[in-house]
């Protein structure tokens, strides 16, 4: 299943809508990085509200996405991690350490806007 990527001003929003296969995740990574370059985006939001399991591969891919996008000078925010999923992730030792997180899409956008303001 492909993940739709929405362009909203300088921000790209990828909303994961169902459980993804490993291939889908890798495809998302490629697509996001490509579009950040193409649209000269300053921020990316990955919305994982619909994911009810986040295993080590998914976490690692999210980390990689964030790192690759940072190398393009843009910021990534992960939004919508469910309470149960967050609990399972930390038990597994997955803390997405240096990626900013936010409660939902709205919060994620607010975070990126604030960040943009503080730079300008």
């Amino acid at each position, binding site marked *: 299943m492909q993940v739709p990527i929405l362009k909203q001003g300088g921000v790209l929003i990828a909303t994961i809508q169902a459980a993804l296969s490993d291939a889908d995740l890798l495809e998302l990574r490629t697509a996001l990085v490509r579009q950040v370059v193409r649209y000269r985006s300053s921020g990316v939001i990955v919305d994982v509200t619909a994911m009810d399991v986040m295993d080590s591969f998914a*976490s690692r891919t999210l980390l990689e996405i964030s790192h690759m996008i940072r190398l393009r000078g843009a910021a990534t925010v992960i939004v919508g991690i469910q309470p149960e999923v967050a609990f*399972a992730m930390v038990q597994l030792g997955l803390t997405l350490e240096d990626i900013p997180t936010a409660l939902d899409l709205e919060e994620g956008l607010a975070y990126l806007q604030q960040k943009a303001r503080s730079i300008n």
Partner: protein
Amino acid sequence: MALRTGFSMSEATLIATAISELARNIVSYANQGSVTLRPVYGSNGATGLTIVASDSGPGITDVTLALRDGYSSSGGLGLGLPGVRRLMDEFDIVSKAGSGTTVTVTKWLP
């Protein structure tokens, strides 16, 4: 199934995550194997869920090393097996180099 056994949503998520990790191990190391789930009933009247993941892959030469946090032979985060051990209540691994690995884990209802 975990929910039907009586686990809460967050425990069911823990179990699902563990299954996902175990299945991933099979896919990335052995190509072929199986994951089975079954309810278990302890001698003290407890109810739980047991997951058996077995494969006929290359096996693990050093089990102690594979269970150490941060160790990975496939370029992963190195959280697979030790992480699964943290998610579950009981963890058992039998592996022989050359003939495959069987991981059996159990989560008990609190």
